[in-house]
């Protein structure tokens, strides 16, 4: 890669070169889109800091006169938020660990083993990726009853321990791991499992991190299946389902600040994780780009 002088940012300006009229237009468009995109979340946080009276006013008040955290305290009165967060964390963490493990193993097999019907089996796996969950919801609901894992966290977790997207992602990245590396380990007498964990996994860390992020966020946010399998067992509810109980609390009246406080709490873990890991991704892409 060659580096031209013009590629080096001059100072801390917004523009890479002397701005033309079109560049100001692009900058304006970016700012407008960013503000519109960020507005609902900003409104959520601002409203969670307002007094109940402020949330009821017409026309709406934008900035709270005296920002306060009262609504957050109230959330804990209405729902067992600590327990809900713990449930969410358990569901998202165990499901993610399971997906990482099954995807790594299956991705390795699809990438590096030759066997009859491999492409057909792989195509079948991919097909499950495009199936909307509602299509299997009704029999699955009865099946977890047969397995005696309904009404609890196990019922939420177990059906999701493998997923086609994870297998696909791992296969794509493991394909790029040199066969020589794997064969050398085999000659040294390493078992296949050992090869996966000590040779293959360390070579695809960025893919594992990306999959972990997506799986964690997806299962932290997931609503339809936990709602169906846990119905009524409020002590098992993850935070996203407990939120709906905030809405029905004191319905239509002074609950706006309460709902926004709860929503802010539920949004934080996936958002923080994304912002942290995105920087890590960008760094890893830049560093591999310079080396390569």
């Amino acid at each position, binding site marked *: 890669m060659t580096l031209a002088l013009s590629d080096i940012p001059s100072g801390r300006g917004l*523009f890479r070169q002397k701005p033309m009229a079109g560049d100001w237009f*692009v900058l304006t468009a970016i700012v407008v*889109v960013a503000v519109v*995109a960020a507005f*609902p979340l900003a409104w959520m946080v601002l409203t969670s800091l307002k007094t109940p009276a402020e949330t009821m006013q017409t026309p709406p008040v934008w900035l709270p006169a005296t920002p306060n955290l009262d609504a957050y305290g109230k959330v804990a009165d209405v729902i067992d938020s600590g327990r809900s967060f713990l449930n969410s964390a358990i569901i998202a963490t165990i499901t993610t660990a399971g997906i990482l493990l099954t995807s790594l193993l299956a991705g390795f097999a699809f990438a590096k083993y030759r066997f009859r019907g491999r492409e057909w089996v792989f195509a079948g796996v991919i097909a499950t990726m495009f199936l909307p969950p*509602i299509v*299997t919801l009704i029999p699955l609901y009865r099946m977890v009853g047969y397995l005696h894992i309904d009404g609890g966290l196990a019922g939420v977790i177990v059906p999701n321990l493998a997923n086609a997207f994870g297998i696909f992602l791992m296969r794509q990245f493991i394909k790029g791991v040199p066969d020589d590396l794997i064969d050398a380990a085999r000659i040294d007498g390493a078992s296949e499992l050992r090869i996966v964990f000590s040779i293959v996994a360390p070579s695809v860390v960025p893919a594992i991190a990306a999959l972990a992020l997506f799986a964690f966020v997806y299962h*932290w*946010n997931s609503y339809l299946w936990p709602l169906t399998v846990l119905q009524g067992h409020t002590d098992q509810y993850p935070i996203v389902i407990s939120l709906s109980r905030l809405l029905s609390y004191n319905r239509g009246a002074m609950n706006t600040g309460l709902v926004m406080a709860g929503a802010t709490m539920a949004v934080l873990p996936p958002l923080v994780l994304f912002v942290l890991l995105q920087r890590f991704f960008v760094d890893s892409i830049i560093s591999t780009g310079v080396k390569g």
Partner: protein
Amino acid sequence: MLTPALVLLGVFIVVPMLLTVWLAFQDWSTETGFDTARFVGLDNFSAIFGPTSVGRDFKGALVNTAIYTLGSVVLLLPLSVLFGLLVYQQRVRVGVVLRTILFSTYMVPMIAVALVWSKLYSPSEGPINQILGWVGLPGSTWLSSPNTALGSIVLLNVWQQVGYFTVLAVAGLTQIPGSVYEAAAIDGANALQRFGRLTLPLLRRTLLFSAVIAVINAVQVFEPVALITQGGPVGATNVLTYHIRRVGIERSQGGLGSAMAVTLILALIVTVVALFALARRGGDE
């Protein structure tokens, strides 16, 4: 190596999928074991397409889902290309910031999105009608009227998902070699011509993939309907995922619900095949 993944996918996706197809031809209550199912031929299908309230509700949900899907795709694809160009352009340096902000909305739980937007849409206490008033536009009824409720849910869905499709568009844009544009610039093509004759045709595969994913995502809309509108007002936001769950789980009519699910998957297959055909025909021109 393959066993854990294939057993899990087999037991929790393939088996229930086959059961759904089987149950679509049975009279079965979801509260009882599969052994109580009784074969009824095509009765479930004639019921859900028939003139009774069962048929009216289902056909309403089918139409609502089609409108919702079309609205989502028609808004998401152009916006994703537009925003993708803003993120990808090299002259102004804040493109990456825009990508982060756009994609972060995709990380927000849909339930929180639904809660926040239900307050934003509030006709009297919400800021959207207030802002419209500032620029001299009349406010809307948003979620509270049958005419505007479904469109309002399309908009909040577009807001949540557009970041994901923008990232897909940026990935597509990076695959187009810069030399193509240099050649076009030498030939005297202006920016609009370069976009129409080069960028869009070269993004065709990306747009096809985006359209397929957008369709599959759109039929899954559930949280805003379940939480805010309960399918109303007067059935205006009754969409398939919500309706199938209400029939098959809450009312325990497992056979009827399964027939609806089978219809959904068939409609989805037809739509995706049509999208591929459309993209192929576009490619031959």
